């Protein structure tokens, strides 16, 4: 990313679930940490999320999934990003995601997954570290 520009992060909640407490807390924590946050809201399809990420020229996409649909939704987002030549956009996520699925998701290109009990500063530190490169 270019120097001096604020980090731009798209936060979204794909799938049918509407439990948005976590996603909103993270969105606000990132905003308070000086990032530009675009919250795409609820019930977004993978394609809508990828389109929004490209239109908004973001550095990263943060996804919250609590419903167990991560193995269906994450790969789609990665593949749509690839199709659009936007694989440089970092994808990270959070929610109720079993360890056994983490390896596979990371090998597909998901940067990091934050599960329940995570301190919001961990997420901020991660984005600071990763998006500096």
């Amino acid at each position, binding site marked *: 990313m270019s120097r001096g520009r604020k980090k731009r992060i798209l936060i979204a909640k794909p*799938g*049918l*679930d*509407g*439990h*948005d*407490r976590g*996603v*909103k*807390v993270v*969105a*606000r*924590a990132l*905003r308070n940490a000086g990032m530009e946050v675009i*919250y795409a*809201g*609820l*019930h977004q*399809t993978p394609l809508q999320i990828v389109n929004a990420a490209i239109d908004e020229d973001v550095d990263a996409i943060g996804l919250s999934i*609590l*419903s*167990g*649909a991560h*193995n*269906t*939704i994450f790969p789609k987002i990665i593949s749509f990003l690839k199709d659009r030549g936007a694989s440089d956009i970092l994808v990270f996520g959070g929610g*109720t*995601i*079993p*360890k*056994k699925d983490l390896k596979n998701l990371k090998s597909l290109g998901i940067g990091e997954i934050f*599960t*329940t*009990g995570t*301190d*919001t*500063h961990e997420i901020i530190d991660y984005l600071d570290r990763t998006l500096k490169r």
Partner: protein
Amino acid sequence: MDNENGTETVGRGDKGSSGEDSFRNLSGFKIKALYGPEDISHLNPETDLGLPGEYPFTRGIHKTMYRQRPWTIRQLGSLDSPSRANERIRHLLKMGATGISLCLDMPTIMGKDSDDPLAEGEVGSCGGVAIDSIEDMRHLLEGIPIDEVSINFVSNSQSAVLLAMFVAVAAERNIPLEKLTGTMQNDILKEYQAQKSYYFPPRPSMRLTVNTLSFCNKFLPRFNPISISGYHLASAGATPVQELAFTLANGFTYVEEGIRSGLSVDSFAPRLSFFFKAHNDFFENIAKFRAARRIWAKTMRERFEAKDRRSCILRMHAQTSGSSLTAHQAENNIIRVTTQALSAVLGGTQSLHTNAFDEAVSIPTTGSEKLALRTQQIISKESGVINTIDPLAGSYYVEALTNQMETECYKYFKEIENLGGVISAIEKGYYARIIADSAFNYQEEIEKRKRTVVGLNEFFEEEEIDIELRAADPGFEDEKISGLTDLKKNRDQALVKTCLNDIREVSQGSDNIMPALIKAVKSYVTLGEIIGEMKEVFGEYREDYIY
């Protein structure tokens, strides 16, 4: 809460949470070191407390409370497929559960059939059962005495459709409708405020709810057409006092709407039921339940001029706090659930769901589910707390806190009224703002160690946490879709069309929608098709996102 000599303690220097600030409850009320007669000098025991079973029901809704009427031990009986959920319900009843709550999977919650493209990967999700058609409802309820065991459907935007299926299945089994027991959660207002499983805009949703109220009033006198729920508000972040105020304000809104639709207050108010969270702060929770009953009773009598005493009685289901459970040192959750459950009992609940200790990491196992159920049985049968009715009445602290809850509630009622009422406050983003603020504050308090979470921000131990989603059987989604495809192929297509047309027409007009829905579900029209048709008429809601 207080120290040995009863004076204010300043800056008691334990690590982590410390100082005066830590003596606050979850609503943020500053808690004094000691309470005495001066704290309840304005309390009039006769008019503010009354006797148990008497107005204003602060001390409980029954004369003898748990001595003669134990609370309903109501546990979750849902699982991906209707037949597996049915097995689980039977198993729970065999273990001593006396009521059942049923959650739906995400597609059903969002009004979509299992074969909807947006349902991919979510059929049977979150331990919820997938209901597409009356066929599923038949399997779900097979052999369950639905006139004896109350089933609480955790169903909201689609409640009218599920009620139609429930009624149609009861009719097939020759169970008289007037004998049917159970509950539809059917509380649409809190969906816009907190849980977010809405699809229609608030006003048509409210019309559907009122249609079910009026239908149940006529045909299902023992059924609770609505369970006005604070639990989800609290889970989304509302503090206990906000949960209480918002839930009661929602309740009053349903009463107003029922009256506006032409029902007399006493014809439907006795069947309104409530659902609250039993959170971590023990006495705050007890005060919340007691204040809830008093505010409801007084408002029903004074503002809505209810004559039937049952209209003034707030009956409630309570659940321990899922959002207070931690993935770290998950066994600690057993103790959290126990103290929360005890507070619900001391607060006088009619029904209780204890969470399983492993919920932060998985769908409960048979073992954790049994432990949760046994927790209630131990409180009920071993602890002795049920021996006398409302043992905490007259406690300086509990009564002062109950009063404070009540006073603070009226401040929120005023704010909501100034915004033009509940629906208008939803549209203006009032709830979204307050709940987002409270959720963020709570997280910040934990991260800054102003609020202790044992095993997480204090007494932390390095451990491997693994989350296990007992997701539906891998083959379940395909199996469900193929069954649904067959069903859609082998029905009277012309009849389906007529039914959908009828639904469209009734939706456009103002007649009660229930008869058209019952006819449709009997003709194998699916939930997704019905909701789809209604969306054409009612439109879809989109909220402004506030965080």
